[in-house]
């Protein structure tokens, strides 16, 4: 357990944060364990489930396969950064209304994948939604309510 921690500076949800972390620890681990941002979930830590999806410069990435040192000064957005102050993101409201979060565990990653989609494609087709969330496994909903929520949020944005 010889510590080889190094200082890492990240810009997360608009805040610059410097923490000491093992250089082999992933962005997922650093977010959860060093920055207390436990909203980002882990389902496999192998890049298979998408639960750990965050945005890096607006693009969805699997934080379990990303080393913080490779990110540099990029903007990282997690589910905690989705709402603006008191104002929830339209996706959050639509997910609640449609019952698109059952157990809620895939939800943070699903929301980030959906946000990346809507930011790039404000009026996505059903097929575009299916493709955008195809890397995010949900075991509860059968995806039906998730489609409805994303479509609803798109109409409101």
């Amino acid at each position, binding site marked *: *357990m*010889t510590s080889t921690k190094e200082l890492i500076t990240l810009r997360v949800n608009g805040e610059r944060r410097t923490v000491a972390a*093992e250089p082999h620890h992933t962005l997922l681990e650093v977010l*959860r*364990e060093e920055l*207390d*941002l*436990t*909203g*980002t*979930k*882990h*389902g*496999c*830590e*192998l890049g*298979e*489930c998408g*639960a750990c999806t965050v945005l890096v410069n607006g693009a969805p990435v699997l934080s379990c396969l990303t080393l913080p040192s490779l990110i540099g000064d990029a903007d990282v957005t*997690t*589910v*905690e950064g*989705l*709402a603006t102050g008191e104002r*929830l993101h339209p996706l*959050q409201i639509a*997910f*609640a*209304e*449609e*019952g698109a*979060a*059952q*157990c*809620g*565990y*895939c*939800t*943070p990653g699903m*929301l980030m994948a959906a946000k990346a989609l809507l930011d790039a494609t404000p009026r996505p087709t059903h097929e575009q*939604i*299916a*493709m955008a*969330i*195809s*890397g*995010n*496994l*949900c*075991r*509860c*909903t*059968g*995806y*039906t*309510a*998730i*489609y409805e929520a994303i479509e609803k949020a798109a109409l409101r944005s």
Partner: protein
Amino acid sequence: MSEFSVIGRRLPKVNSWAHLTGQARYADDLFLPRMLYGRLLRSTRPHARIRRLDVSRAAAHPGVVAIVTGADMPAKMGIMPSTQDETALAVDKVRYVGEPVAAVAAVDEDTAFDALSLIDIDYEDLEPIFTIEEALEREDVKIHDESKRANVFKEVHLSFGDLDGGFASADHVRDDWFFFEGNTHAPIESHSAVASYGGDDKLTLWTATQVPHYLHRELEKVLGLPRSRIRVIATPNGGAFGGKSDPFGHEFAAALLSIRTRRPVKITLDREEVFYAHRGRHPVKMRIRTGVKKDGEITAVHYQSWLDGGAYASYGIATTYYTGALLTVTYRIPAYKFDGVRVYTNKPPCGPKRGHGTTQPRYGFECQLDKIAQDLGLDALEYRKRILQPPQSRTINELRITSMGLGDCLDALGRATRYSERHGQLGRGRGIGIAGSAYISGAGLPIYWNEMPHSGAEIRIDRGGGVTVMCGAAEIGQGSDNMLASVAAEALGILPSDVHVVSGDTSLAPVDLGSYSSRVTFMAGNAVKDAAMKLRALLFAAASEKLGTPVDRLVAAYHRIYDPLDPETFVTFADAAVLAESKHGTLVAAGSYKPPKGIGGSFKGAGVGPTPAYSYQAAVAEVSVDLETGTLIVDKVTTAHDCGRALNPANVEGQIEGSAYMGYGEIIAEEQVFRGGLHKKPSLLDYKLPTSLDTPALEAIVVESVDAEGPFGAKEAGEGPLNPVIPAIANAVYDAIGVRFDETPITPEKILDALGKRDNRGIPKTRIGPDGLADRDGDPKRARRRLDASTEGRDSRGAPPPGPRST
């Protein structure tokens, strides 16, 4: 206008906002001061004696704080008190690859992981048993010494009515074999537990469990700590589906490591460990003989099942009975015999998965009904309607039927899918299939014998009009917290979002037996309603006095108590609370629920099957089969489900859609299969959960039969809707290509095999499936062929021969 102000509305779940903002605290999200991290050493052998287990090198590793092994917790435990055959960590012997053997706590997870490789363990390999057939035959190999016959865990035989007479009076008898492959829950959240033993000599365990109360009992037994000094808190489960309803080794290990170190200890399983923790769907071989008259009326059913239980009991005794218990509640069966055998094998233990034990027989039976309809030239939808078990009746195995909406489900499907017009008319490669099903709204008996309530709830109203509901039910994503809040809110005339819910906490909330057997809405819902109606009476008495209106004319809605004939004269909920507390003292009420007596029989084995109310459901699947590649595309699944009353239609639809999704995964791809005891696909990539691109269009139709005993008429919605989806898809595949798939899953390889296209010499088949059990006809060669027909049999040929290996 609805008679309700909350029930029946599509309100967001009360816990949605925590989920959607990242604020929900799952077990692995807990970080406590001075917390240690634990990892489990797991067996690499399917069946072996532990000759030597030496942790001294690991204990000396810098950063390691404590290590525990099976010898530290030798007490037998297990979810069912009558079949406790496991220990928290293996003692002397391992029975499956992945069985936990020792646990290390260290200052960080990397250190704990490194220390595992420093534990010295020598195994003496024993011959493993991997198949049902071997388990039945091999008297010379005992996975558990207690097994009386070979490796049989449980054998049951039940007979009702005149079976011989029934078959004798039949015009047509079908005799079919089926095989349902095992599969697993694969919740996205892996199991996780955090234990903290405090200076006050009390243990708190936060854990992703569906059954905090049952775990509480087992912790007492294994740790030797009085239950009064243990608090179990079920954290929000990130999906469970039955997979978190056993007591698990890591929960005990975290607890004991915390007791030993006086520091909090967290153990979170990785994804591969979750596949080995399993407790999922049993592989089941089935033989079903059904006699019918010319018009299809059933005269007798003889159902036999052989369950591959894996290495330990889990819920296996209940699973075994469930394979036979519920076939009778959907269609009239005047004579019925059930034989069930569950065997031990050297694989991870099987247990309950959504539909627990009823999914496999329902698949076989509904496929067989499709064949009978075809044999007799009947429309499969109309046929089912004609033979329905009536409402307010008793089945031949003495189960009480109350509300029964299967006919309405079939009607709704007929309208929505035009099944009868389209079946047989879609052309080669396209098909449509139908199936029905039923499920329980909670098991009629608890897993340990007692006369206490199955569910308890407490409600407190504070002086500011705040309402807190406390109930032991575990929130596993099914929406139980929202259900508790909604039922209380409806009764008290407030909104669910006003209610604070304290759930799954053995210290703060009365016992609820747990989130299994789809019992929570019916049982915890009734308990909360009971408590809420007591408080409502106090509030109404106070309001009546203030308004001068008789109590029986008052209603409560939207934070007001008023006379509907004069709605502008009212007392607010908060004012009524102050008036009632002034008069009666602190406003607290408890409620409880216990199923009525007499809902099942009194014979041995009658404890599994009864429920206060059965849910009913049916599904229609539409499929396309690519005749060149064997690819099966399920275009759409429409499921109609009788949930009694939809307390929140959005959530009920979500359960129906999620069930359809999970059933779809089971029939097209998912399988928990092993090679030499090693899981062949212990990752989410290889196991192949359906993604958004795979999942068919799912339509949910809510049917409301308004059950007289359910809370506001509600029954279950979480499990039943899975069951009909699987046979509906198999029946649709038959409609598409004329091949009966009497085994799951229906993979492209099997379809190509059936079409005779797997190799150039192939001969097209009309059926894929088993044709018997090895030990039934005494022909060893045929037995071998049948064995090879099972996935495990195919694999064992390629696996290295088991033999002594040493480390």
